[in-house]
């Protein structure tokens, strides 16, 4: 079928119909949060369904990383209003480790280093703690090794990195690849990638994005937080939202990301300015 504007329009209507039937995995309503006395999120509304990839874009200081941190449960941020429902549960009531158990994964912008703790041991502890939360038996060494081999191949990471201390002395690319490997191992329902592309060259971005794409399925969702459009060339989003001054001011499809790339964030600022 030729890709005429009309047919594309039909497709979108049909897709929205289907979408409305599926229950939301994550439902954020009027979420507000501050750090110390500074109000950062001023009323975020966002619904994400299983199988979808959403991108949150926005200029520096717009609240992108705050949103990621609040969803993961970082205690420095105080939620001052709104609600977040994740798979039918009140997410804001859960501790960070319970959220992880429920299937939330945050790929950190700045993964921390823990000297002396091997990456493998760290991941094994994490995997088994999450399994325990879900009422599953912990993996023994053999089962864990099998899973690890499988996922290592998937995200192209090698053993030597995993036997080193967690993130210690890793390059920027190695740290991000390690984040994606952990994501593969933990098999989350919702993966939040916080500026995973920052500080990476184009080859590293491609490798990381490939890893994420292999992990995409109809059962999980991905929330990509990024400043630049280029990551979205590789992880193609279903929806793009622009965050500005603590609110989502514009939503659209992947074309919106291209428009932002072309015109810069100023046009958003101007639009919002005009509205205000």
């Amino acid at each position, binding site marked *: 079928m030729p890709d005429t504007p009309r047919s594309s329009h039909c497709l979108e209507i049909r897709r929205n119909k289907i979408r409305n039937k599926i229950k939301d995995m994550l439902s954020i309503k009027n979420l507000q949060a501050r750090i110390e006395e500074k109000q950062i999120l001023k009323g975020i509304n966002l619904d994400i369904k299983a199988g979808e990839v959403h991108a949150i874009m926005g200029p520096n200081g717009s609240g992108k990383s705050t949103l990621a941190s609040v969803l993961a*449960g970082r205690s420095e941020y105080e939620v001052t209003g709104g609600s977040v429902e994740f798979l039918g549960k009140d997410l804001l009531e859960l501790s960070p480790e319970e959220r992880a158990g429920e299937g939330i994964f945050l790929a950190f912008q700045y993964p921390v280093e823990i000297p002396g703790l091997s990456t493998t*041991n760290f991941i094994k502890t994490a995997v088994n703690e999450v399994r325990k939360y879900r009422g599953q038996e912990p993996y023994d060494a053999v089962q864990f090794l099998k899973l690890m081999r499988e996922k290592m191949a998937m995200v192209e990471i090698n*053993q030597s990195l995993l036997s080193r201390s967690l993130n210690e002395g890793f390059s920027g690319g190695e740290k991000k690849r390690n984040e994606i490997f952990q994501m593969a191992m933990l098999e989350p329902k919702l993966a939040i990638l916080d500026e995973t592309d920052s500080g990476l060259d184009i080859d590293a971005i491609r490798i990381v994005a490939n890893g994420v794409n292999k992990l995409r399925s109809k059962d999980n969702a991905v929330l990509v937080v990024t400043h630049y459009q280029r990551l979205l060339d590789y992880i193609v989003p279903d929806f793009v939202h622009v965050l500005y001054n603590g609110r989502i001011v514009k939503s659209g499809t992947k074309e919106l990301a291209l428009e932002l790339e072309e015109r810069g964030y100023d046009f958003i600022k101007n639009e919002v300015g005009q509205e205000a």
Partner: protein
Amino acid sequence: MKSEEVYQPEVQEVDESMSAINDTVNSEYKYGFVTEIEADEAPKGLNEDIIRFISAKKNEPSWMLEWRLKAFRQWQKMEEPHWANLHYPKINYQDIIYYSAPKQKTKPKSLDEIDPELRRTFEKLGISLDEQKRLSGVAVDAVIDSVSIATTFKEQLAEKGIIFCSMTEAIQNHPDLVREYLSSVVPVTDNYFAALNSAVFTDGSFVYIPKGVRCPMELSTYFRINAENTGQFERTLIIADEGAYVSYLEGCTAPMRDENQLHAAVVELVALDNAEIKYSTVQNWYPGDKEGNGGIYNFVTKRGICRGVRSKISWTQVETGSAITWKYPSVILKGDHSIGEFYSVAVTNNYQQADTGTKMQHLGKNTRSRIVSKGISAGFSQNSYRGLVHVGKNANGARNFSQCDSLLLGDKCGAHTFPYIEVKNNTAVVEHEATTSKIGEDQIFYCNQRGIDTETAVALIINGFAKEVMNQLPMEFAVEAQKLLAISLEGSVG
């Protein structure tokens, strides 16, 4: 990908230790019980009559009594040292019972005749005195209060000519060895606490490994303070003759009591030509309660001498207990090409204070020493590393490497480093590195986000920090030590 071949067994280890941590992380000091057993005690206080009483109780030869009395007279002229970064009320040396022995109806001739109550005490501590039950190949000398109550595997060891017995027995049965080596490393007047120990020591372990013998099992002594108001003063002497090897472990616990109890031990190690002694300690004396009441005052002198060429002495310590720790396991590197090592993890929580470190005295040529000290402080505690590296004028080619790392949990505790370096030979190379870090909220949150709760996260971070030292411990001790770290720091974060 060649991952399969290089996969490390570490995962298995952590598996065990992690489940162990989970088991124990919510328990408090679990060795705080008291065994109800009648004791044979000396009256409180210290004078020459008490020393005669102790010596008579142990049926000692006159030379031993004279040696003790000499030490006592010296001690009376000495002053308690106060240079360490420790603060505690004055110790009343007349308010201590210097001899307390569990009353046993008849002296047990074999392990089967030990009072069942004592046997149960050690079972409860995880130390089986039943040889059949011990599969791990560790021989144990069990010391309760002032006396050794049992030593296992003595016969098997004797077949190789190895002597492993209580100090009391050694004085009776091997007087020549005792006279030759006792106080040859730590002179009676070395320091206040060593002099006190020399005057009143009541028991301890004695080890002699003959020429060319590699000790086939780990030797260990388990020290237990039980009686109230008593001090424990044990004396350990280990001699590795030419080409011999021994690995020795020391463990200790005490009941929870409101008053402070004094522990002042002396350990001496002698390594002759090409001999090696590996001495490991997991120190878990009662540390006092959360408000800083009670706990053991641990004033210990540990020193080894590498007397022969190419000999080696290695100290490994995991210090988690005691209200006060004053301890500097040292090595005198006399033999050419000899090696001294000191690996330490010292944990302080609540109101504990530790001033610990080492002395490496390079006297021989091409001697080497290595110091790895890891201090972990939490609560309101103070943790100090104090170390001396001395290179004598004849110690050509001496090398030392020291690394002192401190980790802080919270902002009310303190970590201090006092490295002293004296070099009198310009061919020596001495290196010192030191770091101080804090467990970050970032690290904890990162672990939390991966599904790991805060207690487990702290245990992972601590064990990572202490890994270089833990790796030096014999396997079964390492697991025990990891558990201890987790318990000691329980509730200190988050």
